[in-house]
């Protein structure tokens, strides 16, 4: 579903951000992406949603290859993904409903379908009664739920989340994380970058660890009974 093959990424001024990164994420998997600041987590996620292109190697997402990707393919690729950030990225001048509806309007969904779909999505993230509120009237955790509802709008095959709990307190973190697990349980793959090692340890999910642009650990390759110390 997501395949990185010997991916290298260099930025114009800061140089090498990723080198020789290869991994594969299956349909419906939940994968943590960890590593110190500057290790390249966000870069990997940006490569997935085609915000950046690899300098060398290939990124393949939902059968779309970075090697043949055209500018006009980016929109359709992103409609298959749900993207979430630490800073929520909601439109402040629109209420919760409008923020979620936005993702549907952008894809040209029929107007008659948008209302019911938004209501369903808000119910799914536990915000059924906050549809009329504006983002600034909500807590951080609630705002992130709005962003998740928006990410789910187009039935994505995968959720890409860059430190979605980075701005949240413990309680809200647990809530958002549980929501992502629930979404994952319905078959949507989730790739989540995080600094929260507690969360990673507790959850027992597959983990990719980066250090200085290199993939240093993939828990999927630690087969049970393998001779690890």
């Amino acid at each position, binding site marked *: 579903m997501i395949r990185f093959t010997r991916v290298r990424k260099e930025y114009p001024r800061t140089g090498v951000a990723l080198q020789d990164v290869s991994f594969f994420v299956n349909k419906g998997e939940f994968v943590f992406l960890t590593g110190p600041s500057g290790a390249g987590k966000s870069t990997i996620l940006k490569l997935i949603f085609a915000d950046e292109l690899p300098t060398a190697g290939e990124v393949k997402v939902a059968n779309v290859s970075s090697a043949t990707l055209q500018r006009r393919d980016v*929109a359709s*690729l992103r409609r298959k993904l749900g993207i979430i950030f630490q800073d929520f990225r909601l*439109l402040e001048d629109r209420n919760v409903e409008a923020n979620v509806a936005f993702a549907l309007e952008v*894809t040209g969904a029929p107007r008659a379908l948008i209302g019911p779909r938004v209501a369903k999505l808000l119910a799914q993230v536990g915000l059924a009664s906050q549809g009329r509120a504006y983002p600034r009237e909500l807590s951080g955790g609630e705002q992130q739920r709005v962003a998740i509802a928006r990410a789910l*709008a187009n039935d994505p095959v995968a959720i890409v989340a860059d430190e979605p709990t980075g701005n949240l307190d413990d309680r809200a973190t647990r809530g958002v994380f549980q929501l992502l697990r629930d979404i994952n349980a319905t078959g949507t793959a989730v790739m989540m970058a995080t600094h929260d090692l507690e969360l990673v340890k507790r959850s027992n999910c597959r983990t990719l660890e980066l250090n200085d642009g290199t993939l240093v650990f993939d828990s999927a390759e630690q087969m049970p009974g393998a001779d690890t110390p």
Partner: protein
Amino acid sequence: MTLAWREAINAFKRAPMLSALSITTIAFSLFAFGLFGLVALNIRQALTQIEERVEVRAFLGDGTAPEASAAALGDIQAFPEVASATLITSRQALDRARKELGEFNDIFDAALLPASIDIQLKPGFRDPTHVRAVAARIRTYDFVEDVRFGEEWVEKLHQIRNASTLAGLALGLTFAIVAVIIIGSTIRMAVLARVREIAIMRLVGATDGFVRRPFLIEGALKGAMGGLLALLLTWLANEIVGRVAFEAAFFDIRLSIAGIFAGALIGLGGSAFSVGRHLRDL
């Protein structure tokens, strides 16, 4: 209403001053264009009216045989440039002069006016070059004593008309470019004010066309509104001229609609140019 239209209209609400400014600048550009167009239109109309009266008159020598003049008339009528040609006998010339100069008709009692062939040219052949060519051909009959066609003023009028058309085009084009630049920069500001929103649109899978659409609609709407305002201003100016000076012709309904359309096109062009440039590096 679609998202694009709502966005475009929101842009007005979000920046009412900026929107008003760009509408008025477009309006003033088109107003100047309109005023000049009106001048050109009126000159043009006056010219056509005068040209309709452009007439070549060939004076015939005394004692020209009626058969000769009748044959010449037939020839001249067959010229491709000629709409009509009439033989005016010396008697008819006298009658006409009397009628035209009413109270002075005694003067003509004894006078003898020459017979002539009066020639009306077809539209499109009334410019100096054609008129002169026709006159030259008629001069070749040896019983034709003189050919008159108001040589100088025909030429002068044409010079004025050409100059005014040229000036109108140059000025109109300049103003159109200014308007494109102005709307381009207001759209640029609108794009920059909405970078965040555009980034989010992109994240949720909006195509470039979708992102661009509200800006294009916004530009076209502002342009059309500017065009409408310009039309109103031009009409007012025309009314004022009508009151204090002379009755001037105004654009007909088709030209008026074309003016509004031109405004929309300028707005659309300006925003397309600007949005295209700025979205590429967002």
